[in-house]
């Protein structure tokens, strides 16, 4: 496997423009003759599909939801960054680039991140023109708010529903093209395999989730926009149907999986309340602007939080990080929450929570001021927990939120399988080892609106793509394989449900491949994952039939893939003998307990090649070296 | 662009027509009530009013036909909405309940089709009884006029007619309780405050009109026609 990042030469500021100049074009007459498949209709998928269709390509989109509008991008709350510098606070493309690459702890490509920052402004223009109702000032111009990891105000927002509004903009653009007859949209269809002919991606296999039919689709290129894999942890802030299956099946067909162990864990989520818990709800981290995080100083303090006096409260973030206090970055906040609960200081029934207390803020600013700022979040908290956060501290705990890793792509967002493009959270490209807030929406739309439409043209123009026909044996082989796997899952008829397996897998992952990792823990995790995977295939109980709507069969196939991915994540974490961004290895910390990077040895992208599963996952590591020509690598410090 | 007919028969067009015809009909019944109340005026007030109307000649007929057309459109659309509602949900809910709050579901709104149909039937009888009924004649200012007043008084001596009429007027109130507000919303009134105010006004108007109409038969029945205190007959 050869990993060529294809980053253009030249100064950072000129790379993308120079590349665009060199890119091959497909004439309008010829675009009509080419078909592109887009899998997933979130920000990246919907924007790519709409843009490709506008250019003249024939596009087919596939999503697992009942409407393209329901992709998980819709849940993003906070906002989207752009280097508009409307606030005149000294923002620039360079600064956005720098913040993003530094926030990612120097584990992403300079050229990709710079291009992302360059595209950011166009995204805002595009969204506004589509009628996305961003927050505005009294004068009628766009407003900005500030967000973690930046010293400028560059975040555009639509109240707490920015993802929803941007997605609806992209979805509507896509529906416009459906109306124009250039996009064929298939909902409730799940991609189960990639079809590779002569080394090139030439189509996909899907299952119609309504009646179970396995279908074959041919195309000249496939764009995978299927999101992240946070649900490998069972509990996460991801939507229940978010999954890794499409990406993993591509990996199995030869696409390299990059940095799988880079998982972001969000510090302010509502804690687990019982075994039945199905997902975790995130609350904006802006809460940490006014809330103080603490736990009781002693282990056996069973008093109500309001009765615990000041001297018995351990404000661990304020004590450890006097200058940043409660506003340390996401990874630092999450890690410290785990440390105190590991020490037995956690609160609540499960002991897996810490307090986020607004008592002092309410005393200082009054309840009305706090309500004005956080009213909707407080309501949401009360609705879920039945506790009044104005009267007693919130209980919070970190939860898996975003995966920076994903399929490896070059500068053109093409994987190592020619013709397979990967965009949005599904690729590994721009966030390194940690993603900054308000950057996910930016990346999804940058990829979909402003990168893929050009780079696909370059690929198609440069290839001789003859029709192969879905009768080709590669199609039937892939379709048979998909059907057989489903039949096999149904045939086990064991004793344990898919959810029980998934929950157990999630626990292993959370305990040992979660907030902090150790060599010992990872090695035992790998053993446990293998054993549980064996048991899964012997003892899983999948109800129903394959030819009807059957959600638990869908889950079973997805969990089967998680079992393989989980092992890869542990292997990747074990291989990376350093700490960086969200990846914290207990063995590699500064004396003060901070992440200790090893730029000498680990300044690379881990790209894993799938070789097989035979009791254990057979895999091979390839490295793409990261060269930093334009920024200087520094150790982060928040003391 | 749709043709005017297509626009008029679209879901919005139908609703706009229902609203516009509804408002027209409300204005008509206010006018009608004014005429009815003439029974409490001077002895010949009601017949004089009738005479003035008849003196419009062909214009009266045009107005009558116009009114009929408006009424038929209103009823026709209302009935077709009811039929369409049945095809739009062939399988009913086992349990159905309103969530309250801003919902305008009430006995009034849920029974629009029923009250509407009863009113339709009523109007047929009503025209038959009063507009086409046998009346004597009286002389007013040297002109021969129909003695509608005697017909009214005579008719409402009959308990079935008096109470039947009063009951239908209650249904009219119910119809207007939702209808007055709804007509304005159908015509595009979108202000939330204006809507709230109008909902109250609509309710009050419904009550006032219903009482205004049903007061007359009840009063005549219990008062014994020309013997009643407020009615002077010659």
């Amino acid at each position, binding site marked *: 496997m050869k990993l060529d990042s294809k980053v253009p030469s030249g100064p950072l500021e000129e790379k993308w423009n120079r590349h665009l100049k060199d890119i091959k074009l497909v004439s309008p007459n010829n675009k009509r003759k080419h078909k592109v498949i887009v899998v997933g209709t979130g920000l990246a998928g919907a924007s790519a599909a709409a843009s490709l269709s506008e250019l003249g390509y024939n596009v087919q989109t596939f999503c697992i939801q009942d*409407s393209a*509008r*329901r992709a*998980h991008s819709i*849940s993003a709350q906070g906002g989207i960054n752009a280097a*508009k510098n409307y606030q005149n606070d000294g923002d620039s493309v360079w600064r956005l680039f720098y913040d993003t690459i530094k926030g990612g702890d120097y584990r992403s490509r300079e050229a990709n991140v710079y291009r992302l920052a360059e595209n950011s402004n166009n995204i805002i*223009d*595009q969204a*506004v*023109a*589509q*009628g996305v*109702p961003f927050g*505005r000032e009294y004068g009628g*111009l766009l407003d900005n708010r500030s967000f973690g990891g930046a010293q400028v105000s560059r975040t555009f927002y*639509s109240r707490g*529903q920015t993802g*929803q509004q941007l997605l*609806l903009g992209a979805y509507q653009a896509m*529906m416009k093209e459906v109306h124009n007859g250039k996009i064929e949209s298939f*909902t409730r269809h799940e991609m189960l395999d990639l079809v590779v002919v002569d080394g090139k991606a030439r189509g996909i296999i899907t299952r119609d989730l*309504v*009646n179970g039919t396995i279908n074959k689709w041919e195309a000249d290129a496939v764009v995978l926009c299927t999101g992240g894999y946070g649900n490998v942890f069972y509990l996460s802030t991801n*939507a*229940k149907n978010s999954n890794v299956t499409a990406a993993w099946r591509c990996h199995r067909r030869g696409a390299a999986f990059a940095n799988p162990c880079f998982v972001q864990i969000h510090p302010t989520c509502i804690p687990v309340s019982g075994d*039945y818990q*199905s*997902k975790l*709800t995130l609350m904006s981290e802006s809460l940490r602007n006014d809330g103080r995080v603490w736990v009781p100083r002693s282990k056996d303090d069973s008093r109500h939080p309001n009765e615990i006096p000041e001297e018995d409260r351990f404000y661990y973030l304020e004590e450890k990080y006097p200058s940043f206090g409660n506003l340390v970055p996401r990874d630092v906040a999450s890690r410290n929450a785990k440390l105190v609960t590991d020490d037995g200081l956690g609160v609540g029934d499960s002991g897996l929570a810490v307090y986020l207390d607004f008592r002092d803020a309410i005393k200082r600013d009054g309840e009305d001021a706090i309500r004005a700022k956080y009213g909707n979040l407080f309501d949401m908290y009360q*609705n879920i*927990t*039945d506790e009044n956060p104005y009267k007693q501290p919130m209980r919070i705990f970190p939860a898996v939120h975003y995966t920076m890793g994903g399929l490896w792509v070059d500068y053109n967002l093409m994987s190592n399988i020619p013709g397979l493009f990967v965009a949005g959270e599904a690729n590994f490209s721009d966030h390194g080892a940690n993603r900054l807030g308000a950057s996910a929406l930016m990346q999804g739309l940058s990829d979909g609106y402003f990168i893929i*439409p050009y780079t696909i043209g370059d690929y198609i123009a440069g290839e001789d793509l003859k029709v192969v026909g879905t009768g080709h044996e590669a199609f039937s082989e892939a379709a048979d394989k998909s059907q057989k796997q489903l039949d096999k899952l149904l045939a086990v008829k064991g004793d344990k*449900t898919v*959810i*029980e397996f998934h929950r157990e897998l999630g626990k292993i992952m959370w305990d040992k491949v979660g907030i902090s990792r150790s060599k010992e823990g990872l090695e035992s995790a790998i053993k446990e994952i293998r054993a549980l995977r064996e048991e899964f295939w012997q003892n899983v109980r999948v*109800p129903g039939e394959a030819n*009807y*709507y059957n*959600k*638990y069969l869908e889950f079973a196939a997805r969990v089967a893939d998680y079992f393989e991915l989980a092992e890869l994540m542990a292997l990747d974490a074990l291989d990376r003998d350093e700490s960086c961004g969200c990846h914290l290895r207990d063995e590699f910390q500064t004396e003060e307990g901070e992440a200790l990077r090893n730029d000498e040895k680990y300044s690379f992208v881990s790209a894993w090649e799938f070789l097989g599963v035979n009791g254990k996952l057979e895999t091979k590591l390839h490295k793409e070296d990261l060269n930093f020509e334009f920024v200087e690598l520094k150790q982060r410090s928040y003391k | 662009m749709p043709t005017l007919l297509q*626009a008029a028969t*679209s*879901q919005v067009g139908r*609703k706009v027509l229902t609203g516009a015809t509804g408002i027209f009909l409300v204005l008509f019944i206010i006018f009608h009530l004014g005429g009815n109340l003439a029974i409490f005026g001077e002895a010949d007030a009601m017949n004089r009013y009738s005479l003035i109307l008849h003196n419009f000649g062909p214009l009266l007929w045009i107005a009558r036909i116009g009114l009929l057309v408006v009424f038929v459109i209103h009823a026709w659309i209302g009935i077709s*909405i009811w039929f369409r*509602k049945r095809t*739009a949900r*062939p399988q009913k*809910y086992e*349990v159905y*309940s*309103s*969530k309250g*709050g801003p*919902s*305008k579901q009430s006995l009034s709104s849920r029974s629009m089709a029923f009250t509407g149909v009863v009113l339709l039937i009523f109007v047929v009888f009503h025209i038959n009884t009063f507009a086409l009924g046998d009346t004597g004649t009286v002389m007013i200012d040297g002109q021969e006029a129909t003695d509608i007043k005697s017909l009214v008084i005579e008719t409402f001596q009959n308990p079935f007619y008096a109470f039947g009429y009063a009951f239908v007027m209650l249904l009219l109130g119910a119809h207007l309780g939702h209808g007055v507000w*709804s007509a304005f*919303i159908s015509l*595009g009134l979108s202000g939330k405050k204006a809507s709230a105010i109008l909902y109250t006004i609509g309710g009050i108007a419904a009550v006032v009109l219903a009482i205004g109409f049903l007061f007359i038969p009840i009063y005549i029945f219990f008062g014994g026609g020309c013997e009643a205190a407020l009615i002077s007959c010659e």
Partner: protein
Amino acid sequence: MSEMTINLKIWRQKSIDDQGGFQTYQLSEVSEHMSFLEMLDVLNEKLIKEDIDPVEFDYDCREGICGSCNMVVNGSAHGPKRLTAVCQLHMRTYNDGDTIVIEPPRAAAFPVIRDLVVDRSALDRIIEVGGYVSVKTGAAPEANLIPVEQEVSNTAFDYATCIGCGACVAACPNSSAALFTGAKVAHLNSLPQGYPERKRRTIAMVDQMAKEGFGDCSNYGECEAVCPVGISISSIAEMRKSYLKAVL
């Protein structure tokens, strides 16, 4: 933590061609902290172990924003709580021994796929005919070129917040999609960006509603009452106004 026993009467229908009917189940050990959908998850785990097909229902984000979930609980779309999608409803709303009737949203335009899962693609087709601004990627002018009055922008947002769950249709006695359609028309028509296409958009979307087999709007206002994001029926009035201006 108090635990309850809940009696469930749930609509079961194997496929679009199946006639369907109600089944009753008893579920004990229901925690008050469970969400309504988690209660159904627990029921399904139990059913799977008993070799009974689990109850199929749509869901995804479980945060009230994706609009996937939409079931009619004791006769109310999304259950008894206002401004709450059923995924955000918690079992503490119920008491030990309660019976809960769960049905799919019922409308000719929403055929049942299985149990509580329905096909809501009719809503997509309404958007398809005009629920957008026809701006191509790359053709957008600088974002701050056109100022938009803050109040106008806020109102547009209120309409744009629709999650497309179809509860409005489910709850409407006439099965009308006027709130869904009105919300998108009012959102786009009120903004300068959506203004040029307002006539074509409104006419096409209104037309499509009828083609999909949704009923007429009789201003019952039940849609607003069940809408998990509280979209006002003023959007329907706005749609009518736009329509009148477009055709007259």
